């Protein structure tokens, strides 16, 4: 008897074997594709004008906003002039139930840094993963970070500042390598990054004696403290460094009251340089009370939110677009801190008109069209 596949095998048998082989091959290919194909939740849809094929205006910037769901958060792209009608989903970020992401848009508006607790994580102080969302997709840069410490871009978008354990860490924004870290030797203080410009990292330190501002220098893989100045006798928040680096605005907390104050860090005649003669304490200038959420315009003017103790609607500025014409803000209804009944993201254009975004959205940043 001839061998099974020998030249003596009948043609029908050879065809059957060939058919089975082809079908098996397709089955194997299908399994492999099924294992690696991205899930629907991780699709990235990026692009330019194709994002909004029916977009009516080309003079309004695009806003990145986040929408929280119990187990994932959606990043949306919105047309600032018509955020309700002109919107596109950028990506869904899965996360642990109950914990929203923390995110920040890069200054060049072409990437978003996202901190999220993975779906199987739990601890906001040590479980967060850092991801970068950009044209190439979603890239994880680091893990084991503090979610509530937030994330901040350096001014040149080359670095990201996060909290790692009890330290501030500066990471490479492309690959997540740690470039330097710093921890205070003082007990019982809270440390938060304010801004990173060049190799200088400004940090706020809040403790029993109030608030100090530190300037750290990144050099040789280390963050070294160069200067420190006391700016407030009490706790503060919402720190914002002016575009020229000469002034620092913040909300000072006195009881339940907030008031914006500004500290001059540099001699007015010396832009971009901190005065060599930082005194032990710099007096701050009050702006208004009550007030909060100071935000610098590109031209160096300061905006902030005010409200009436008798209640009503008020706004807190969040961020100015680089063109200096569009402002993202929180619109709130209530009496002030601790007495807010509702809020909504809104956008104000150059003509002063205010457009409200759909409910439940949180401002992340601006996006380059």
């Amino acid at each position, binding site marked *: 008897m001839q061998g099974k596949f020998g030249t003596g095998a009948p043609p029908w048998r050879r*065809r059957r074997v060939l058919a089975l082989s082809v079908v098996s091959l397709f089955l194997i290919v299908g399994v492999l*594709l099924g294992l690696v194909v991205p899930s629907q939740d991780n699709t990235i849809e990026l692009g330019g004008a194709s994002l909004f094929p029916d977009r009516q205006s080309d003079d309004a910037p695009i806003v990145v906003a986040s929408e929280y769901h119990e187990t994932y958060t959606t990043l949306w792209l919105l047309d600032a002039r018509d955020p309700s009608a002109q919107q596109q989903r950028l990506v869904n970020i899965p996360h642990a139930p109950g914990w*929203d992401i923390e995110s920040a848009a890069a200054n060049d508006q072409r990437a978003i840094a996202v901190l999220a607790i993975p779906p199987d994580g739990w601890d906001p102080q040590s479980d967060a993963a850092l991801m970068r969302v950009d044209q190439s997709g979603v890239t994880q840069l680091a893990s084991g970070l503090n979610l509530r410490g937030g994330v901040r871009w350096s001014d040149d978008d080359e670095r990201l500042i996060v909290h790692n354990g009890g330290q501030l860490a500066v990471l490479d924004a492309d690959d997540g390598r740690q470039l330097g870290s710093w921890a205070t030797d003082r007990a*019982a203080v809270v440390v938060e990054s304010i801004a990173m410009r060049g190799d200088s990292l400004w940090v706020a330190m809040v403790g029993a004696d109030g608030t100090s501002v530190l300037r750290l220098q990144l050099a040789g893989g280390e963050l070294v403290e160069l200067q420190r100045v006391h700016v407030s006798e009490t706790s503060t*928040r919402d720190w914002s460094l002016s575009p020229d680096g000469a002034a620092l605005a913040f909300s000072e907390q006195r009881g339940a009251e907030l008031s914006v104050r500004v500290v001059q860090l540099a001699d007015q005649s010396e832009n971009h340089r901190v005065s060599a003669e930082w005194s032990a304490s710099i007096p701050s200038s009050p702006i208004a009370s009550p007030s909060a959420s100071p935000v610098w315009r590109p031209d160096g003017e300061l905006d902030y939110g005010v409200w009436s103790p008798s209640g009503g609607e008020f706004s807190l500025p969040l961020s100015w677009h680089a063109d200096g014409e569009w402002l993202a803000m929180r619109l709130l209804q209530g009496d002030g801190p*601790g007495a807010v009944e509702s809020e909504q993201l809104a956008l104000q254009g150059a003509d002063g008109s205010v457009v409200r975004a759909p409910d439940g959205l949180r401002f992340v940043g601006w996006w380059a069209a």
Partner: protein
Amino acid sequence: MSVGGKSLVLSALLALACGLAIGYALRGEQIDAAPASCPAFGGGPPFSLQSYEADELRQTFLDAVRLASINQLTPGDSDFELPPLLVGAQRAERRAATIPAEVLYGIAWVESTLTQTARHVPYNSQGPTLISFDCGYGVMQVTSSIFNDGRLPSRYEALVASHFAYNIAAGARILVEKWNSSFFPQVGDGDPQYIESWYYALWAYNGWAGVNHPQHHSNDAFRQPYRCGEREARNSYPYQELVLGCIVNPPSRGGQQLWQSRQVALPDLGALSGSGQPLNFDVFSAGWENVYSRPGGDPPPFAEMAMPLPSGAQAVGPVAIQNPAGLRAEVLGVPSGRIDQTELELTSSELASGSTQLTIYNDGSGLLAWRIVDAPSWLSFDVQGGVAVGAGYRPGGRASPSTLRISAAAEGVPEGTQLGRITIAYDYPDGRSPTTRVAISLDKRGAAFYEAGRPQS
């Protein structure tokens, strides 16, 4: 194209589609992975235990919470019963412990949405215990008094991790310990009947950290009250506001609220957070400086944070249970453990390490908690303890045994015959922990055999 050719193309496309479906399915659901180690609690890997997830409507767990709130869940069990509450100004008076049940409901929901097992475990089923990345176990995410140092779990550790009732009891006990500790400040006259009085104890339950201070910069100054909804994130809230928010706005399952809403008055930050006032952030920071500068803790470091009971607070009496003993019997049951196998065969060689399975039955009711007490180092196990379900406990009334997979970890064992035994303990609700032993011998080059021993007590 011939008929045969068309058939081939169709078959190939069908195979491709099937393959895609199979491949996608093989990626599997998200499996909750326990952390590799517990740096803050023992340094070793977490215990591996099996637990039981009850009904989706959480009624079994809520019954356990109610019993725990009046110290009727594990009375007489020195590891789990509630110690007396120290009440009154300066904590001068001892009183039988009762906790407003709503406080425990809120904690359980915030910690785990009232679940004991990993998220992929179906309701009314056994499965791995829910373990967070900071090594918190089960419903109440218990970390205290658990030392994950690579050894076998103690009775306390095994029960906390495997049996929801003991986990809830442990969480309630930890809360009482926070209430009693002079390290933490008091609210008002220290009257536990007011939910508002538990503000600082709740804060301490999650950790006496700055992020839980209502004025910490990471807590949005303009936050609205937490409504415990599925569309609200926790990021901008101190822990105690999450719990209190869930008391005011109970979650729902099956179209019904899981517990009755209670109005709770939050501290008036306007009145209490001025300079030198109890909820001023600087005062909290100064308290921590006291901790480092006054290790003896005298006077208590956070005494300046003592604050009055909020206006509008209303006393909530202990939960009324007509027959606590009867309810406890329903929750805990009367389990009875049994292992049938007298001989198990395990083969092991240089090339492969075989495994076998030991089945633990519950011939009684409720959950039978069991754990490995002792075992040779040349054996490995998939779990260190678990629960076997008795008849009548699950919908449909079927019992469900627990299984222990045993493998020979014979690397490094010299050639020849090794003798040893596994000791299994049953932890009964009446406090007894009888043991049963399984003798084992391993022929490094051949098969191992086992003999089941008799209960030792």
